[in-house]
């Protein structure tokens, strides 16, 4: 199709869809309305189970099955990226060149690295209490590791990052989530139901039944997944080259 035809199709399709959606907006409940039946039930159940962060309760207890699916997506993207960005037959690895980084940047990176790792852990650990959780904390921790690449060079990062271990960690974290689910089934109730753990005292680290466990599993899986993903991209951008002459 020529560019002109494409623009016409886009104009017609976009205008139609825009008209439809804009017409739907006034029919929506006004922004800021007070009717949220599902939301109100969720808050009630979350408090009944001593989980201070309602969102964590939805993610890891009431709708934990959705999170299982999301975990699957994450896992699949990681395997997919590993497969897609593999080193093919016509490619070779070139040793990364060491980079000279100015001193303040290097110092900053090395000081912030542990702080960021700790923050990541903190965000994961307090997931069922305050804003945060496995998804967010995992990303923070994994990103923090890459300060080594920014503050030093790629070799320094590779030294602390045995990528195979992270792949295994990713898979084990996913298995951990599933095994917690199976425990509910074996305990005689239902998949992903909490049969083992007490609900604890409201607003403490050990509250919420299986929420902290599942939260930790997600945290580990997200952290490992992000590390593996970035490793594949860094490999491509820094190391892997096309075999010369082919």
């Amino acid at each position: 199709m020529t560019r002109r035809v494409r623009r016409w199709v886009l104009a017609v399709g976009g205008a139609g869809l825009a008209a439809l959606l804009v017409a739907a907006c006034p029919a929506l409940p006004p922004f800021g309305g007070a009717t949220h039946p599902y939301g109100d039930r969720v808050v009630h159940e979350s408090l009944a189970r001593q989980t201070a962060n309602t969102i964590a309760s939805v993610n890891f207890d009431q709708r934990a099955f959705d999170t299982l699916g999301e975990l699957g997506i994450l896992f699949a993207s990681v395997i997919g990226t590993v497969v897609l960005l593999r080193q093919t037959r016509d490619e070779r690895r070139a040793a990364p060149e060491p980079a000279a980084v100015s001193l303040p940047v290097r110092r900053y990176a090395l000081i912030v690295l542990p702080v960021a790792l700790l923050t990541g852990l903190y965000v994961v650990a307090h997931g069922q209490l305050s804003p945060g959780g496995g998804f967010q904390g995992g990303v923070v921790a994994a990103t923090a590791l890459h300060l080594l690449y920014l503050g030093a060079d790629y070799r320094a990062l590779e030294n602390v990052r045995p990528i195979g271990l992270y792949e295994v960690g990713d898979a084990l974290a996913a298995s951990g989530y599933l095994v917690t689910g199976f425990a509910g089934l074996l305990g005689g109730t239902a998949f992903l139901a909490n049969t083992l753990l007490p609900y604890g005292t409201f607003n403490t680290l050990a509250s919420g039944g299986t929420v902290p466990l599942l939260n930790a599993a997600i945290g580990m899986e997200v952290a490992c997944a992000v590390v593996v993903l970035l490793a594949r991209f860094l490999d491509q951008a820094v190391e892997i080259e096309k075999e010369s002459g082919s």
Partner: protein
Amino acid sequence: MMSVLPYLVAVWIFLTGCYGIVTSRNLIHAVGCLAVCQSATYVLLLAVGYRDGGTAPVFSDVEPGSRPVVDPVVQALALTDVVVGATVTALLLALVIQVSKRHGTVDPDELSELRG
């Protein structure tokens, strides 16, 4: 106006992102536009769940029942989607890298292997 503005913004973002993909001349740019489309879904979800004068249903620092709270369900839906969206973007970018290797270009106008 205020009662529909957030919804309209979500619609605008979605359609803008679509426009970007259609007219893009660079596949990396197109994947970026897809990420823009996805952010429309977050905006719509959270706008749907908002309650006037509400606060987050996170009770680590407020007493339960002391203030009205917004809808936690949509937040949970949006939250997981953010991280998943990033990994899907990564997968698509991986494909773009391979396209550039095999075709020598990332301009969709120049890709002509599949047609007819």
